[in-house]
Structures are given as structure tokens and as C-alpha cells.
């Protein structure tokens, strides 16, 4: 009986092995594999999910061999897609941590095997924060549909819904942002008649109306004070407009905007004339990691929409004293738009306080639809600016969020097709050098081909959020807490 069992087992394994395509007399070619997503010669964190990919050719079988010293990860598959088994992937990544891996891809096309040029994966020992939140939205104009805020674990493919439009009367929702990359400190805004600002602080949910008689709107763009007690907000009157020529789609500008600080303990709003000058548009505020400064963007008002191309935002800074919630009297200009000729958006300082990454566009305040929009990184100690040539593309590269160890940031890029934004991760090494970015891996390699949604405002966090969409549904039924 036993013999019979082994016979069957050997037969099954033999049949399986025989069916698994393996390269035979492969022709070596000098080209890199036509893989999508492009995962060639990148730096990745050891805790990233498997980098599943497909080949954009007529391959009917693939072999991938990733080798790092004695450790080997090999996979042979029929078809043109490769999905790594997660257990084997994790084991290999742990063994290859801090080392460089050579990846050899071979493909069978029309019965002949090709072996592509080997490429490298540098496995960084610096971990990336394991959770990523983003808003899934079609790249629409004015009408939204099927909006969701999602939290995804980047170590695997698990995701869960933070807020679902179905549960909030199909209301629009702004993107979800964290404070200190802490899952117990985050915020987003739900519009509509029962809407309000959802504050998750110490795991407790509150619904706030962050507005008083002085503010021109409820809070729009936000940054948390490291203490979690304060949030710095912009209030904006936002106008959409539509371009007539082919290469452009949508323009969004503010006709009014100010910056203020909200105290979540006393429900009080604080501002100062420097942040609410009626001749200046102030927006995109964020605290420095030590909480002593507010960085924000500011532009002189121009005649809109006619002079939209003259609307250029500088990057400014003002001090803030959390002890008595007072502001400094002097505004420093960190990046002068008039001198540099660009408009700055979305500044964010790395948690270690060394780097300031922001987006520059030719003009305006909505770089997501500016194909020239690029990220830049400023060394806050020297003031030197890195144009991040290895990071940027010829399409919109914009909104970013830092990992808590300041070694990684995620940003939204439309580099693939110019329309659908995707989260890309970039490694900043100890010398401050940026490495080639890579897109968020997906369970199914063809996911991005079929997906009709953009990933908005990707934000990294150290852990899983303590609430879900049903909690938000319940919260929306409560009254808003008012601010004075």
C-alpha cells in the first residue's frame, strides 16, 4: 500500500514538474524585461509585499530567479504574469535584508526562451511604515462617485475601508491624513448635510465643525502638531475650471484662503494677521516635527481666472508657540516663487527634521493636473535643493507622505498614463540620496491596467487604524462639535 502511495506521489510530483516550464537553451538578450510595473534596479524595504509583475509581450511562460548569496527565490509560471508566494517571499526578503539581490527573468515567446538582462533589487534594512491610507477616486472633474478611503497593509495585500460613500449618503470625502504617522491620530473631512471633520485621537472618534465666524470655510488642508493637541488648517474657497487644450484637464484655484490653528482640547481656533492676510492666499500648512514652526504656501492674489498663470505660491514659515498658542511676528520665505519661477504645494518635513519635500508646478495650487509638477527636496540644514531627478517623471509627481523613520516617502504619480495616479515609494538613504521609486505592489499584476481609480493623498502610518467605515457611519449621525 505504502509503495503504491509513494508511486502516486512521485508520479504527481513528476507530472507537476514536467508541466512547469523551465528555460531551455535560452538566448541572452541585452534588454531589460518589459515588465510592468517597472521593478528593475530599485531599492525596496525588506517588509514590502511581493513585487508581482507581468511581462508586456507574448510570453507564455516565465522563470524568475532572485539570488542573494546562498538565498534563492525561484518561480516558474505559465502565462505572462508572476505572483510570488508570500511566505517564500517574506523568507527571502528577511535573508536578503541589507544586501543586493540579482534578479534574472527568462520568458518563453513563440516556443523560444529569452533570458533578459539581469537587474538588481537593493533590499534596505530600513523598514517602511506598514500601513498606507489613500482615497480611491476616479480622476473626475466635478461629479464624484463611489468614493472610498482605504487603508492598505503594504507588507501584504490586505486592505480595509475607512470610509465608504454608501454609508455617508454618497457624500464626498476629503483625504485621510495622519499625525506623526500614528494610527491613533488622524483626520479627514466628510462633506454633505451631516458632514464634518472626523478626528481620530487616541483611538477616539469625534465629529467636528472646525469653523468659526472668522474663518472663510471649514478646514481643508491640514497638518498635526506633534503633541496631537493642535491641527493647522487652511480654509479655502475652491473653484474648479476646465482647460480647452488636449494636454490639460482641470484647473482648481482658490479665490480666498487663510491658515489657522485649531485646538482640539478647547475647541478653539487661533490665527494671526500674517496667516489671514486678505491680499495673500495662504494654504497647505504643516507643522515642523518639533512643532515650533508652521510651514505654509502663500501667493499674492491675482485676477482669477484670467491671470491664473501668474498665481505662484512661495514656501513660507512662521513660528508657533504651543504653550500659549501664539504665532511669531515674522514670516520667513524659504522658497521664493517670484525668484524661482515656480509655485510650491504640499510641503512636508521629514520626521527627523532634516528634509523638506514639496511639489513645484509652473503655477497654481493644484499640481495633480499639472504634468510638469515635480517633487523637490530641500536640506533644511544647508538650504540645498535636490530636484529629485531619479524620482520625478514627465507627468505629475506630487503629494507625498513620510515614513516615520524618514527613510521612505510615498507620493502620488501619474507617470504611467498621465491620468490615473498611483502610490510610489522612494528611498532616501543616509546620505540623503533619493533612489528610483517603485509603485505599490498588487496581488494581481494586471490590477493597474484594469483599475479606473486614482490613489489620492497616499499617507503612511506605523499601524492599523482603530476604526472602520461602519464606525464612521455611526459617527456621522452625531452632532458636530462646534469651535469658537
Amino acid at each position, binding site marked *: 500500500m505504502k509503495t503504491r502511495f509513494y508511486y502516486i506521489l512521485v508520479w504527481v510530483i513528476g507530472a507537476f514538474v514536467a508541466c512547469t516550464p523551465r528555460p531551455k537553451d535560452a538566448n541572452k538578450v541585452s534588454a531589460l524585461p518589459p515588465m510592468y510595473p517597472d521593478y528593475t534596479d530599485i531599492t525596496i524595504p525588506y517588509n514590502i509585499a511581493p513585487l508581482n509583475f507581468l511581462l508586456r509581450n507574448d510570453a507564455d511562460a516565465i522563470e524568475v530567479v532572485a539570488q542573494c548569496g546562498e538565498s534563492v527565490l525561484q518561480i516558474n509560471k505559465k502565462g505572462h504574469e508572476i505572483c510570488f508566494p508570500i511566505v517564500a517571499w517574506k523568507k527571502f526578503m528577511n535573508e536578503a535584508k541589507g544586501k543586493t539581490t540579482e534578479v534574472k527573468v527568462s520568458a518563453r515567446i513563440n516556443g523560444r526562451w529569452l533570458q533578459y538582462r539581469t537587474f538588481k533589487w537593493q533590499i534596505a534594512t530600513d523598514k517602511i511604515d506598514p500601513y498606507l491610507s489613500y482615497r480611491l477616486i*476616479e480622476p*473626475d*472633474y*466635478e*461629479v*464624484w*462617485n*463611489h468614493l472610498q478611503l482605504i487603508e492598505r497593509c503594504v507588507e501584504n495585500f490586505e486592505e480595509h*475601508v475607512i470610509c*465608504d460613500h*454608501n*454609508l455617508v449618503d*454618497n457624500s464626498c470625502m476629503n483625504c485621510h491624513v495622519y499625525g506623526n504617522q500614528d494610527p491613533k491620530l488622524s483626520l479627514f473631512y466628510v462633506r454633505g448635510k451631516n458632514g464634518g471633520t472626523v478626528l481620530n485621537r487616541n483611538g477616539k472618534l469625534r465629529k467636528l465643525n472646525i469653523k468659526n465666524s472668522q474663518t472663510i470655510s471649514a478646514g481643508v488642508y491640514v497638518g498635526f502638531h506633534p503633541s496631537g493637541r493642535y491641527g493647522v488648517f487652511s480654509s479655502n474657497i475652491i473653484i474648479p*475650471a*476646465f*482647460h*480647452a*487644450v*488636449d*494636454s*490639460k*484637464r482641470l*484647473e482648481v484655484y482658490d479665490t480666498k484662503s487663510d491658515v489657522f490653528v485649531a485646538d482640539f482640547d478647547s475647541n478653539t481656533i487661533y490665527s494671526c494677521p500674517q496667516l489671514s492676510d486678505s491680499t495673500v492666499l495662504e494654504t497647505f500648512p504643516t507643522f515642523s516635527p518639533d512643532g515650533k514652526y508652521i510651514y505654509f504656501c502663500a501667493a499674492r492674489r491675482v485676477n482669477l*481666472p484670467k491671470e*491664473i498663470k501668474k498665481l505662484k505660491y512661495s514656501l513660507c514659515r512662521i513660528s508657533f508657540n504651543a504653550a500659549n498658542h501664539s504665532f511669531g511676528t515674522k514670516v520667513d520665505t524659504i522658497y521664493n516663487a517670484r525668484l524661482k519661477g515656480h509655485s510650491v504645494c504640499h510641503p512636508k518635513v521629514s520626521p527627523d527634521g532634516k528634509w523638506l519635500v514639496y511639489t513645484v508646478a509652473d503655477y497654481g495650487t493644484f499640481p495633480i493636473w499639472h504634468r510638469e509638477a515635480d517633487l523637490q527636496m530641500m536640506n533644511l540644514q544647508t538650504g540645498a535643493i535636490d530636484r529629485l531627478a531619479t524620482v520625478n517623471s514627465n507627468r505629475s509627481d506630487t503629494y507625498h507622505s513620510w515614513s516615520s523613520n524618514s527613510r521612505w516617502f510615498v507620493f502620488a504619480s501619474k507617470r*504611467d*498614463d*498621465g*491620468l*490615473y495616479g498611483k502610490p510610489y515609494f522612494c528611498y532616501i538613504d543616509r546620505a540623503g540620496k533619493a533612489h528610483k521609486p517603485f509603485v505599490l505592489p498588487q496581488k*494581481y499584476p*494586471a490590477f493597474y*491596467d*484594469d483599475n*479606473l481609480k486614482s490613489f489620492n493623498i497616499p499617507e503612511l502610518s506605523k499601524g492599523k487604524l482603530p476604526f*472602520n*467605515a*461602519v464606525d464612521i457611519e455611526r459617527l456621522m449621525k452625531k452632532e458636530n462639535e462646534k469651535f469658537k
Partner: protein
Amino acid sequence: MKQYINQIFSLVFGLAVFTFFAFFYQYHLYYQEQYQLFLFTGDYFTQMSYHIGGLAAYLGSFLTQFFYYPKLGAIIIAILLVIIQELILFLSTMMKRQSYWTLLTFIPSIIYWNMLCDENTMMTGVAGLIITLLAASLYMLIENGWTRMVYLIAFAPLLYVMVGGVYVVFIFLSIVIEYFYFENASTSAIIGTVGGVLIAVFLPYVCSFFVQAPLNRLYWGFDWYRFPIVGIGFYLSIWVSVVLVPILFVVIPDMKKHAFFCTTAQFVGVVLLIVFALYNGYNKQKEEIMNYDFLIRSKQWDKVIQKAQKKSPNTPMSVADLNLALAKTGQMSDHMFDFFQRDPQGLLPDFQRDFTLPLVTSEIYYQLGFVNTAQRYAFEAMEATPDYQKSGRVLRRLAETNLINGEYKVAYKYLKILQKSLFYRKFANRTMALLWNEKAINADPEYAWLRKCRPQKDFLFSEAEKDMMLGTLFVHNRKNRMAFEYLMAYYLLTGNMQQFAKCFPLGKSIGYDHVPYTYQQALKYLGKQMPQSK
């Protein structure tokens, strides 16, 4: 003959349904089809069936794709409504083999016929109801009481996942069958009844802890109607009638002695019910509007005009369709006032957060050469679709606008998706060959012309200044006759005769062989009003 009477009635009913949808309501079917896109992919199946009632939604979408050919759609609807009737007949006659009330089994199908006259009623419900009736029929075929009990309690939750809220019909039909057909009041029947009722009442509530969806939709179901909010009467009218008919079969005494009277009365009643259902459900005006929209979509400009000549359209949508057809056939400047004209809304309707009107407006902007604006309106229409489905018609238009704009990667993405559909595949394959092929695009009469027409210098499109936008478009390409005629029509419809007079000379570049009739009249009027302007 007598033994086939039920089949004959079913056949006649099916033919009536087919005739109605194939010849009197065919544009409703076109309309339905354009607001969804069934894809032959595993991902689409997973995505559709991932939620409660997903299998019914998937099948509904599968069936709706055939509405691309309305006669095929009409056959499908007729067959499905007959299947519903036949399944109810099966359940009813099993419970009482000798009955003279068989025509009652048509009632649920007639109600559904009435509901399908509403363009927002989805085929999901039909698919879900048939699965439910099949499940109930299976219950009837199980001999053993305990097996039936286990089947009811075990299958009801599974059925809920497959078809949504209509699973309660299965539970109540099973209870009816248990007591009226099997006449079983034993322990198994009581456990089954209590268990079934508890499942009916609490299952959606329990699911609400695991499924992120509104509780009321978990109870009633998803995708039966295009809009998420619909009165419960919509569901109850069908569900109650389906459960009630078999009960009536048993409860109402047979009138064997008055069989002829009984059958005649039912027949008259059924006919009257059909007449009432169609009188109540048939919407001639909507069918007319959808007819215009179909003719525009398929570029049958002459047919639009022929139709308008029989009866002048009067809704903004259909007037806008007519004006587009007049412009495309070069008749706008001569004949636009041969027809009823509303105001500029019948020329270029304003944007609305709606899924119908922006589609028509998109067609107009597309033909004018405002490619980006056409793209925006089409995109917005798809975004405004209340059930979040993708639209085959819109994706096709978006592929075209991106192709014209040279955004080949985006066009490729849309075409790849369309290639996975049944009826858009041909277009997708043909258009795919044009990508990154400037020579081929420029050899295509439509795309090449629109490339020449679209603005080259950037400006922000202003809907409040349509005349300025049209003027800018025409100045860019002075051969764009349609832009010129829309500009002049805009001034005529807004009564801005001064601007009309000012812009009239620009028409020289068009190369008219005569002064268009409408313009002659306007100039004559201007001459009378302002002699100095002669």
C-alpha cells in the same frame, strides 16, 4: 387543445412582451445597455459577485448587454417573464393539480413587465427572482421533511449572498409549500418555519456587522433599481404577488361547474391588468427622447430630421439632438427655424449633475471640435450614474477623445477594457490599430477633422460664455462650419442681433453658395430695426 391551454397562454404572453419591447419600447433597451459594461473577465465576476446579491447582479448585467440589439433584448425579457410565470405555475399546480385559476400565475410577470417599462429597473431583479423560484421548486421536490428543513436553513443564507433580499421569497414559499403541499406540521416543519423566519428577519442585520453597506439595502437588496433609494412598494409588489399566487391557488375554491366563466373572467382580468400595466408604465415621451439619442449616437443624422419632420421635438434634449443633426447635414443655417426652437438650452444644454443630459451635450461638443469639453461631459455622465456602473458608450467616447488628443496610453487602457466586452470589442480592436499611428489617425476622416478643429491655444472653458467659446473655436479653424453655425444660432436664440450682425461676415470663409435662409430673415429683420446697419 385543452391540455396545451397553459402553454398557449404562455406563448401568447411571451409574444406580447416581445412585441412590446421589440417594436414599441426598443430605445429603452438601448438606453439600458449604454449605462453598463459587462466584461468577460474573472475580475469582473469577482467584483460583481463580491457583494450581497452579486450573482443576480452579474447575471442581470450579462443579460442587459444583449440589449445592444433590442430585438434580442426583447426576446430575452419575454423568455424571462415567461420563465417566472412558468415557475409560479409549476409551484401552484404542484400544490393543487386541479385548478381553474392558472391565469393568476401571470400576475407577477405582468407586474414585472410594468416595472421594466421604467428605464431604471435593472435586470438584476429578474435574475434574482428566477434563481429564488428555482430554489423554491427544488424545495418542493425534496421528499424527506428533515432534508427539506436542513435545505431551507442551510440554503437560505447562501441564497441571500447570491440574490440579496429576495431570498425571503424563498423562505416564505418554502413555508407555504411545507404546509399546503406537504401538509406537514411535524417537528421538522416547525423547526424549518421558525428557523426560516429568524433567518429572514435577522440575517441582513447580522450581515451589517460584516458587510459595509446600509442596513435598508441589506434587507431589500442591491441593484434592482438604478438609484439606491427606491420605495419598498417596488420590491413588495413583486415579492408579495409571487408568494400570494400559490396560496390563492389553494385557498380559492375550484369552480369546476363554471370553468368557462372562470377562465374567461381570468383572461379578461389578465388582459385588463396588462392594459393597465402598460398604460401606467409606458412612457412615450421618454421613448421619443431615447430614440433621438440613439439616432445621434449612431450618427443617423437624416433619420433624426425625418423624425422631426413628422413631429417637431420639444424637449431640450431632443431639440439639441435635432439641431446637431441639422448642423451635421449642413441644414442648420437654412432650416433650424422650420422646427420648434426652445432657447440656447436646445442648442448647447448647460451642464447638469446627471447621467443622461451630459451624454447628449458631449456628442454636440465632440462634433463641434471641443474634444476636451466632450470628454469632460462624457466622464461626468458616467460618474453621475447612480449605480456606479461603467458605461460602454462613455468608455468608447473617452477612448476616442484620448486618441484625438494623443493620450494614447489612456486610450489604450479604455480600449483594453472594451476588448473584454462582447459588443464593443470590434470597435476596440479597430481603434487599437490607430494608437501611436499618426498617419492612420490623420487618414481617419472624423478623427483627423476633429484634430484640426480642437483648440490649440489653451483657455479655460466657460459655460457662461458659450458664444465666446464658439467664437474662439471658429477663429481657430475658419472652415469649421458647425462652430460658425452654432455661434450664429446662439445669437439668434438669445436675440443678440447686434452680435449676429457683427459675426455674420465671418461666414465668408465657410464658402456658402447662398446666404442661408435663416440668416436672410435675420438680416431683413435687422434692416428694419436698424436701417443704418444695412
